[in-house]
């Protein structure tokens, strides 16, 4: 029987790692993710988990050791955040290019400067072009589930790409919630042992990995990463189905809430989705035709699901905790690509919100709705809006 325990999201991520049985874990402490390797250390110390835990001297070495381990043919896991993920940046491309199904748990945190340990998504969003799949969890249960799902998708022969699972710093990482821990036997059935079909660093079948690709080959290799990411759409759906059958919880690339007759739809990722649902309920009572949507998968970008959502709205407001300076939030820019050639499309607005751990309040959300309503009646509004800025100190 699945067991319910009250735990922090970091612990849920460690539990997911325990259930996934990676043979190698390599990690380096960083706020707010440190509890993940701490908990894994305890599991190993108590004999509850059988993994080699490499206590590396940096995140760069953490991901490099994961690459070495994965290339040697075993399941590998790490956890990090913020500067740690940024330090891994170079190797993230390599892991994807070498088609190694590593999974990273990310306690989504801002990037310096100024140094700040609190939540936004700038860390993982900034890695969107590395070839890693990206999942964002709304709560602790989702973090646990999505890590298992991430391994399953990543190791699929049609995909073979690494994946990161993000969950908001402190809002989730350090918040206790009841989490259902699935039975090990069911997880074993779901995930199975990772047995790569190719010979990886095996003296019996020596192969060369990580060779130099000249212009005659480079582009094709990169194209296979593109193809794998395209294949991932279908595989993610299949794995969501299988996950539901095994564990009874259903995931969607984009999950909608009260969108059917909505004029304004607020789309976000991560824990903010929970806040939006409460807010939508409140506004519905006031008679506002409003809905919410949560994007669980950010890479591959859920293109068709996003278009279907967009068809329902007159104003589609994207609330995102990241900024690509000089253009907009990253999700908004992506949404533009998705809708640009659509005949009918909603007014698309971007709301930069909650950077560096600033609370997102109902007052902030009211401001989002006010701007969206103006757009709805044809008033000109800014496309990119910074919400909750303390203009008095600027």
């Amino acid at each position: 029987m699945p067991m319910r325990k009250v735990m922090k999201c970091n612990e849920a991520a460690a539990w997911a790692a325990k259930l996934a049985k990676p043979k190698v874990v390599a990690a380096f402490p960083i706020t707010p993710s440190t509890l993940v390797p701490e908990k894994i250390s305890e599991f190993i110390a108590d004999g509850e988990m059988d993994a080699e835990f490499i206590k590396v001297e940096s995140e760069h070495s953490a991901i490099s050791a994961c690459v070495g381990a994965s290339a040697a043919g075993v399941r590998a896991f790490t956890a990090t955040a913020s500067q740690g993920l940024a330090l891994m940046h170079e190797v993230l491309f390599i892991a994807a290019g070498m088609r190694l199904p590593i999974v990273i748990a990310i306690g989504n945190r801002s990037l310096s400067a100024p140094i700040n340990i609190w939540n936004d998504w700038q860390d993982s969003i900034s890695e969107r072009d590395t070839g890693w799949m990206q999942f964002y969890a709304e709560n602790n249960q989702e973090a646990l589930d999505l890590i298992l799902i991430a391994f399953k998708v990543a190791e699929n022969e049609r995909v073979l790409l690494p994946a990161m699972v993000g969950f908001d710093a402190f809002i989730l990482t350090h918040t206790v919630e009841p989490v259902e821990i699935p039975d090990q036997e069911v997880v074993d059935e779901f995930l199975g042992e990772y047995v790569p079909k190719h010979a990886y660093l095996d003296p019996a079948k020596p192969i060369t990995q990580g060779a130099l690709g000249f212009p005659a080959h480079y582009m094709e290799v990169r194209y296979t990463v593109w193809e794998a990411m395209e294949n991932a759409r279908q595989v993610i759906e299949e794995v969501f189905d299988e996950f539901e059958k095994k564990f009874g919880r259903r995931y969607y690339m984009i999950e909608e809430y009260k969108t059917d007759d909505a004029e304004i739809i607020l789309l976000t990722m991560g824990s903010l989705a929970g806040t939006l649902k409460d807010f939508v309920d409140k506004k519905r009572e006031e008679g506002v035709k409003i809905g919410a949507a949560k994007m669980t998968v950010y890479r591959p970008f859920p293109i068709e699901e996003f278009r279907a959502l967009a068809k329902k709205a007159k104003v589609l407001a994207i609330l995102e905790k990241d900024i690509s300076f000089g253009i907009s939030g990253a999700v908004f820019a992506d949404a533009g690509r998705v809708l640009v050639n659509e005949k009918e499309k909603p007014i698309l607005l971007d709301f930069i919100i909650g950077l560096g751990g600033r609370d997102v309040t109902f007052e902030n959300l009211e401001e989002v709705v006010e701007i969206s309503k103006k757009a709805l009646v044809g008033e000109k509004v800014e496309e990119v809006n910074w919400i909750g800025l303390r203009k008095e100190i600027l």
Partner: protein
Amino acid sequence: MAIRKPPITTREYWAPGHAACAGCGPAIVMKLATKAFSEAMEEKYGDPNAFAIAHATGCMEVVSAVFPYTAWKAPWIHVAFENAAAAASGVEAAWKKLGRKGKILAIGGDGGTADIGLQALSGMLERRHNVVYLMYDNEAYMNTGIQRSSSTPYGAWTTTSPPGKYSIGEDKPKKWVALIAAAHQAPYVATASIGDPYDFYRKMKKAASVDGPAFVQVLAPCVPGWRIPSEKTVEIARLAIESGLWPLFEIENGDFYNIKFQRFPKDGKFKKPIEDYLKIQGRFKHLFKRPEAIQELKNQIKEVWRILGKEVELL
């Protein structure tokens, strides 16, 4: 007449057809190191192939693995410049969990080891991975076109340490990574030179045989980088030993009080002049107009010997 067993194995892991320069010192290192490794694995595990290689970005990586070709007959992985030791740590951990017997060979040049890869090397040594780290030292960033590294010797010309009106060439003493490695109390640390291939071979075998981490720093002249004739590579590497410029030693478990030396003159007097080593290398040509710089180089080398516990005389 009995046919003698060859002094080194005839097995090859470094295939012909790689793209290294004629007379390349590091290419000799690759050939000998893998042979020595294979002998050690055969003796220890009964399987000469029981090893994998994690290679840092650099000349030997580039010339050996141009897709779709490879010069490697052993399992081989290249990840990036600074992380060969970290990647090797991961491979070793995976092999342990897979129950696979053998040892991992990490390879990097002096740039990838003394500079950008030093942190990952330190981590690997400190964590006691069952990995041999082989540093082929050609004393500059040769793959990018001869830029100085912290392992470039005093006085040497490189493209980023050019001699000029206000410059004698490289103006810092060479950093000896072997001493840093030994300070980790690694089970086995050695220096070697392709000028004494049998000594290098023995040391690689020893490094591969010990349990836990080992580090070997081998001098490997670079034909274009040192501005030397391609047939002089080994001769120059031997002159480095004979002139006292390249100490050959072994340090076990960080025991600096019991360093073993090889080819050390009993009287502490090296018989070949340092100038013999310098004068056949274009990278030192300018020093002959600056005798005080040659003296400074000698003083620095004597100081290294003194740190190693030896008072020496250099010609």
